């Protein structure tokens, strides 16, 4: 651990005040700032013994459920008079709230709101997650690396390839061992990659023995320099099943090339049902059930996620006794419809490529149309540790129980999260639902993520919450918080429910209200 990190970790509450000078923790310089002065950056200053931050605290405006445009507003310190657009559904996020590491005092904002006659509080802080990472889903059938292969960023190991899902490759990145368990360079590279992925920036990842992938949340993956456009519609066998009727009467044989299961229509159950005739085709590969072949090729970047660039290479000799004849027509297509070719057998029963006929264009187009756009999706996963919870309540385990008992609604920058069952508060959130730029870092290294806990005021008080620190939204808009930074209003992402209401409805549905 670096000297800097140690200093960060050990600076104790008493140290923060040196006469009327304050230590700013906004950047690694950690200036002491005298009253009325700014730090070396001129961006943060000491006003009346408090650090003032120029970056605004983010307050989301949730549109009424009936719809209507949400107009962002900007509140600048004292000048804010509450006169701008206000749907009445504000939510103070933890973005820009400031952190209270090591959480020896109440969270920066404990906000009260009355919703449908019930007093709710939202406890808002920027949590420091030493235990955190991202799960990345890359929609592609291409083989990007073997399971458990190391994933690198800037040459450093930051995670690994994990078990693939239907039509997608999965990466598990970050975690405490890469962040703080390895070399300084490894920790720094891991922290950078996680931060950029969470803030929806593109990150280049190199997989040992596999591909180089550019991952950007919500965007198509770029694999070895090639943009992936579509997910496959299904495996080769499924594709045969879906489209066999479309091909009937238009072509004598169809092979759907796939790295998992390659399908052959004349042998496939779907073809048989339609009375498809034998063609004497021979697939080089391991036959699973009729018309379904495993392992026609190694996984790769060619046709249908195989290494194949010439699809004929998976075909053996054509057998005249089983129906092969000169002029027999053959369509070969990949599971995304992106690669396709048309052949006819010559007098020697060798397939010869011919111009692609119009009559088959529609079915190939249909495969492509049925493929969803390929995306990278990034889920942040982190555990809210003991110290973070202590900023919410004097008795941290009560918060855990309240979250697990669905009495406390957890959000990250206002976005809904999935809380893992079992002990602790381990949560996952889709970073595209979190307002942009919401994630930060500390040089430990660890990520800083906004986290908000919304629960009934009486529940909050009962579980040992800091009742005296509860403030109204209006008060926070008017006076800000410890960092005295301007408040910034912004429209909440449309899909995110308004957290206080979400909690209330959930509580009612669970009979916990």
């Amino acid at each position: 651990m670096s000297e800097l990190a140690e200093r960060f970790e050990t600076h104790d509450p008493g140290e923060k005040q040196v006469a009327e000078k304050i230590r700013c923790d906004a950047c690694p310089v950690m200036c002491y700032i005298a009253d009325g002065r700014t730090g070396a950056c001129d961006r943060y200053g000491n006003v009346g013994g408090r650090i003032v931050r120029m970056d605004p605290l983010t307050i989301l405006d949730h549109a009424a459920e009936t719809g209507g445009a949400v107009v962002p507003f900007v509140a600048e310190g004292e000048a804010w008079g509450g006169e701008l657009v206000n749907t009445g559904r504000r939510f103070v996020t933890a973005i820009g709230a400031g952190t209270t590491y090591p959480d020896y005092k109440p969270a920066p904002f404990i906000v009260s709101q009355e919703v449908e006659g019930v007093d709710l509080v939202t406890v808002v802080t920027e949590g420091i997650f030493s235990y955190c990472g991202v799960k990345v889903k890359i929609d592609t059938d291409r083989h990007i690396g073997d399971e458990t292969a190391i994933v690198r960023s800037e040459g450093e190991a930051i995670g690994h390839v994990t078990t693939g899902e239907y039509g997608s490759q999965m990466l598990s990145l970050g975690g405490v061992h890469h962040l703080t368990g390895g070399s300084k360079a490894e920790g720094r590279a891991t922290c950078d990659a996680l931060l950029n992925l969470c803030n929806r920036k593109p990150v280049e990842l190199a997989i040992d023995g596999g591909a180089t992938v550019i991952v950007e949340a919500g965007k198509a993956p770029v694999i070895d320099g090639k943009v992936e456009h579509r997910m496959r519609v299904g495996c080769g066998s499924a594709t045969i099943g879906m489209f066999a009727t479309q091909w009937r009467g238009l072509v004598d044989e169809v092979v759907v090339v796939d790295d998992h299961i390659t399908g052959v229509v004349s042998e496939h159950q779907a073809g048989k049902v339609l009375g498809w005739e034998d063609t004497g085709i021979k697939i080089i590969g391991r036959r699973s059930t009729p018309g379904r072949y495993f392992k026609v090729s190694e996984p790769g970047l060619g046709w249908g996620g195989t290494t194949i660039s010439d699809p004929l290479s998976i075909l053996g000799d054509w057998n005249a006794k089983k129906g092969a004849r000169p002029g027999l027509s053959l369509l070969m297509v990949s599971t995304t419809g992106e690669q396709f070719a048309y052949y006819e057998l010559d007098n020697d029963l060798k397939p010869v490529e011919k111009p692609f006929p119009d009559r088959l264009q529609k079915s190939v187009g249909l495969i492509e149309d049925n493929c969803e756009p390929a995306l990278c999706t990034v889920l942040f996963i982190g555990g809210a540790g003991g110290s973070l919870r202590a900023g919410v309540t004097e008795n941290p385990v009560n918060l855990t129980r309240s979250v697990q008992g669905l009495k406390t609604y957890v959000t990250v920058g206002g976005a809904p999260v999935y809380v893992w069952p079992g002990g602790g508060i381990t949560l996952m959130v889709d970073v595209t639902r979190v307002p942009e730029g919401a994630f930060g870092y500390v040089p430990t290294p660890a990520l800083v993520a906004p986290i908000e806990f919304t629960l009934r005021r009486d529940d909050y008080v009962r579980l040992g919450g800091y009742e005296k620190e509860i403030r109204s939204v209006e008060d926070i808009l008017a006076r800000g918080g410890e960092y005295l930074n301007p408040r910034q209003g912004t429209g909440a992402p449309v899909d995110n429910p308004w957290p206080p209401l979400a909690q209330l409805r959930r509580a009612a549905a669970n009979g916990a209200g």
Partner: protein
Amino acid sequence: MNSPQAHWLADGRRLHLNHGPIDLIVETFGSEDERRAAYEQAVARFQTILIELVEELPELRLPAFFLAPRDFASQTARRMEAAVMPLAECFITPMAAVAGSVADEILGAMLSGRRLDRAYVNNGGDSALHLGRNQSMTVAIAGTGNGMADRVTIRAEDGVRGVATSGWRGRSFSLGIADAVTVLARTGAAADAAATLIANAVDLPGHPSITRVSARDLSPDSDLGEQLVTQNVGALSPIEVDRALDNGLVVAEDFRRRGLIAASALFLAGEARICGSVALATPNKHQAKETAHA
């Protein structure tokens, strides 16, 4: 905690790099591929430069002594120490060269393996320049309305690759009263350190209309400690202005004779002194034309 940021400025040509107190404007000239690669190298180098400096900050804030050069882990810190070493007969800390050294370091990283016609890294007025053969660059300086040129053209053969400006009105503290002292030198770091000391020397010790405050009172962890830094300069008589500028000029001439700087321009209360032969004193053609027109 905020992380390093890189953004294109609105003109789409210049890159703005920011991390904490560091703000760099970077521009390159050359073939598109080379420029792109150079920007990538600059951004890559920028990721850790502040963290590296912070790790050695306590030592960098201590005075350098010319008989005992120190070794630092980071390349930028080594540049800082090297730049202040020839000046370390009097009080100076490597922090006097931090802006120029950061500019030099980023420029160095940017040029590594690249072929660019020209490039510059401007760190809040302290700049590192790259000039290929037969290239030149025109730099705006704070020559404020006194008949001096406000543009200086630096040619490749001048041997100048650093431009820095210091003065009490700027972001860093100054012990002197110069409005601005601009220095041309071989590196950004050398220009930065020299400008700091020349600006400190433009002074009228004990003058009642100069307000001075202990650096520590303004910024508790300033490398200047209890030394008094200039916070305001009241009315000065023309004779006093001359005397203050001449005090600075003595130091500037000394630096130039020792080969530490190529040239310097000192500004105070509308008056100026020029040290060195670079085209600093050339009348501004554009301005002359306007005057003629009027």
